[in-house]
C-alpha cells in the first residue's frame, strides 16, 4: 500500500488535443478510494495516465509511496491499472491473462498457479480460467481485468472508467462489488469516472476536475453540500443546482431545497414558481419552470421532491415555492468561487 502524490503536475498538449492538466497538487491517503470526477476533456484520464507512467508530465512530479517516480517506466511503479476497454489479451486464455503480470515481473513460476487461483477466486471467476476473452460477457471481462490487476499485489490500483462498458443494471451491482473488493484488499485506489453517481457512491474522497484544474477535493458529502464553485455546484447533482444572478453574487440552491412553501420550515425566501412541465420519475417528481415576480423574473429553475409528498402541480399554474435560507449557496460573481452567505436585498 502506498500514498500517491501529484506535485504541480502540468501536462501541455499540442493545440486541439483535449485532456491537458494544469498545475495539479493532490495526495491520496493510505488505502483510500479516491475518485477523479470530471466531464470529458477535464484531464482526469491524463492525470491517471501520468500516475501510471503512460504519459510523462510536462512539469511537476508524481510520487508513489514517498518516492519520486516521474520518469520511471510503468513497470517500475508497482501499480496495476484497469482500462476502460479492459485491454485483455485476446489470444490468451483467462488463466494466461491473469498470469501475464506474474510472468512479466519474473515472479517464480512455481507460485503462479496459486496466485492465479487466489485472484480468480477473489473475483469469482475460477470457472472461466480456460476461456478466451471473446467468450466472456462484459461483466466477466471486467472481473478478469480486475483479477489481472490484483494478482501481483500492487501498491496502487488505477481504474479508468472500468464500469462504462457495462449496462446500467450491471453497473449498479458492479459498483457495490468494487467497493466490497476495495474494502477487502485495502489497496490505495484511484478511480476515474465522469459519472457522478459512481463518484458519490464509491469514493472516500472525490476530486472534481474541470479543464485540467482541480476544482474541489472532498468527501462526497462535502462536494455535494458545500460546492467550492459554480462548476462543482452545476456538475454534481441531477438535475444540477439552480444558480441565479443577484447583484454582485450568484445564488444557488439545489432542486430538492426548492419546494412548495408549506414544506419549508424556518426562515425562508419565498418565490413564485410558474410550472411548465412535471416529470414523474417513480420515487420522485421533477418540476421545470420559471420564477415570477421577483428580481429573478423569468429565471429557469428546477424543483425535485418525493413522489409521496402531498403536492399538486398543474402545468402552467403559478405556485408559492420557497427555499430555506440556510440552503442558499453564495458564489462570487467574478471568480465564481464560494463566498460568505449574506442577506438577500430586493431593492
Amino acid at each position, binding site marked *: 500500500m502506498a500514498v500517491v502524490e501529484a506535485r504541480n503536475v502540468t501536462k501541455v498538449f499540442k493545440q486541439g488535443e483535449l485532456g491537458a492538466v494544469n498545475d495539479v497538487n493532490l495526495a491520496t491517503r493510505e488505502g483510500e478510494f479516491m475518485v477523479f470526477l470530471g466531464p470529458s476533456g477535464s484531464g482526469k484520464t491524463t492525470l491517471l495516465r501520468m500516475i501510471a507512467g503512460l504519459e510523462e508530465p510536462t512539469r511537476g512530479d508524481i510520487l508513489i509511496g514517498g518516492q519520486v517516480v516521474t520518469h520511471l517506466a510503468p*513497470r517500475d511503479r508497482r501499480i496495476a491499472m484497469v*482500462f476502460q476497454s479492459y485491454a485483455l489479451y485476446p*489470444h490468451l486464455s483467462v488463466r494466461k491473462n491473469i498470469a501475464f*503480470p506474474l510472468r*512479466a515481473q519474473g515472479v517464480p513460476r512455481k507460485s503462479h498457479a496459486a496466485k492465479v487461483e487466489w485472484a480468480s477466486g477473489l473475483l469469482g471467476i475460477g470457472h472461466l480460467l480456460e476461456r478466451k476473452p471473446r467468450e466472456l460477457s462484459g461483466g466477466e471481462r471486467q472481473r478478469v481485468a480486475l483479477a489481472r490487476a490484483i494478482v501481483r499485489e500492487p501498491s496502487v490500483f488505477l481504474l479508468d472508467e472500468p464500469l462504462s462498458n457495462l449496462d446500467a443494471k450491471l453497473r449498479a451491482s458492479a459498483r457495490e462489488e468494487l467497493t466490497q473488493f476495495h474494502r477487502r484488499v485495502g489497496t490505495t485506489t484511484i478511480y476515474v469516472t465522469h459519472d457522478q453517481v459512481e463518484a458519490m457512491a464509491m469514493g472516500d474522497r472525490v476530486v472534481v476536475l474541470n479543464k485540467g484544474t482541480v476544482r474541489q477535493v472532498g468527501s462526497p458529502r462535502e462536494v455535494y453540500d458545500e460546492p467550492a464553485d459554480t462548476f462543482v455546484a452545476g456538475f454534481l447533482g441531477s438535475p444540477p443546482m439552480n444558480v441565479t444572478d443577484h447583484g454582485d453574487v450568484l445564488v444557488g440552491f439545489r432542486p430538492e431545497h426548492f419546494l412548495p412553501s408549506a414544506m419549508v420550515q424556518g426562515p425562508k425566501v419565498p418565490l413564485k414558481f410558474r410550472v411548465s412541465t412535471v416529470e414523474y420519475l417513480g420515487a420522485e417528481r421533477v418540476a421545470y419552470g420559471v420564477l415570477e415576480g421577483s428580481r429573478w423574473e423569468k429565471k429557469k429553475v428546477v424543483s425535485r421532491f418525493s413522489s409521496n409528498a402531498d403536492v399538486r402541480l398543474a402545468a402552467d399554474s403559478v405556485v408559492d415555492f420557497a427555499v430555506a435560507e440556510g440552503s442558499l449557496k453564495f458564489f462570487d460573481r467574478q471568480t465564481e468561487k464560494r463566498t460568505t452567505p449574506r442577506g438577500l436585498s430586493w431593492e
Partner: protein
Amino acid sequence: MFGPAVLYIVALVGLPLFLAFFYAFTDIRVGSTSIHLVGLENFRSVLSSPTFRGALWHSFVFTVSAQVIVLFGANALALALLQRFRGRNLARFIILLPWVAPISLGAIGWKWILDSIYSVINWVLIRFHLVKPFDAPMWLGEPTLAMMSVILVHAWRMLPFSTVIVLAGLTAIPKDIPEAAAVDGAGFWRTHLEITLPMMRPIINVAVLFGVVFTFTDMTVVYILTRGGPFDSTQVLPALAFFTGVLGTDLAAGSAISVFLVPILVIVAWLMLRMAHRAEVV
C-alpha cells in the same frame, strides 16, 4: 452482373491456364503449324534435365529466403514507422518507393549497383580499403553471391508491400493493449513477441502468402540481373519456363515447366481463401 467477371476470368485466367496444361502434353513449338499429343514425354524430359531440377530447388531457396528477410525487415520497419517522429510521412513515402516504381527499372538500377566493373558497392569497399582493387566481389558473377544478390534485390522490392500490411496490422491493435502490457511489467520484446505478434498473426499470414505468390512466380529480377546465370545457379522456374518456351521456342517444354508451379500456388491459394473466410482481426 456476373457476365463481365466471368468473361474476364475465362479470357485472362481460364484460357491461358487451360492452354498451359494442354501444351504441356503436346509437341507444339513457336511458329509450328502442326500439333501432336505426346503424353508425358515433356515432363519426362524436363524432369531428367539438371537445369530444371536446379531451378526447382532455386525457386524454393529464392522464395523462402526472400520471405524470411522480408518478414523480419517488415516487422522492424513497421515498428519504427509506428513511432511518432519528424518526417514520418516522408519516411513512409520513401519506403513505399521500391514498390510503386516499375520492377524492371529498379532491377536495372541494381544491375548497375552490382555490376562487375562499375559497382558503387565495390567502389566504396575499395575506397575504405576493405577489399583490394582487383579482388572485389563479383556480385552477379559467382554462384553463391549471385543467388544472394537476387534474393536481396527481390526482398528489397517486396519489403514495402509487407511493411504496409504489417503496419496496418499494428495500427489495428488498440493502444490499450500494449499499454496494459507495459503496466503489467512487460518490456519491449515481451510485449512484441507475446502480445503484439500473436495478435497480428492473421494479417502476417496474409502478407506471407501474398509474398510467396509474388516471389515464387517472379522472373523479372532474375531475368534482368543474371538471366539465370552464372551456370544456371540462379535459375528459377518462371524464368526457365520463359527461356525455354518463349526464347527457346519450345512452347511445350516451357508449359510443362510452368505446370510445376501449380501445386504450390494451389496450396497457397487454398490457404488464402481459408484465411479470408475466417478472417478474424482482433
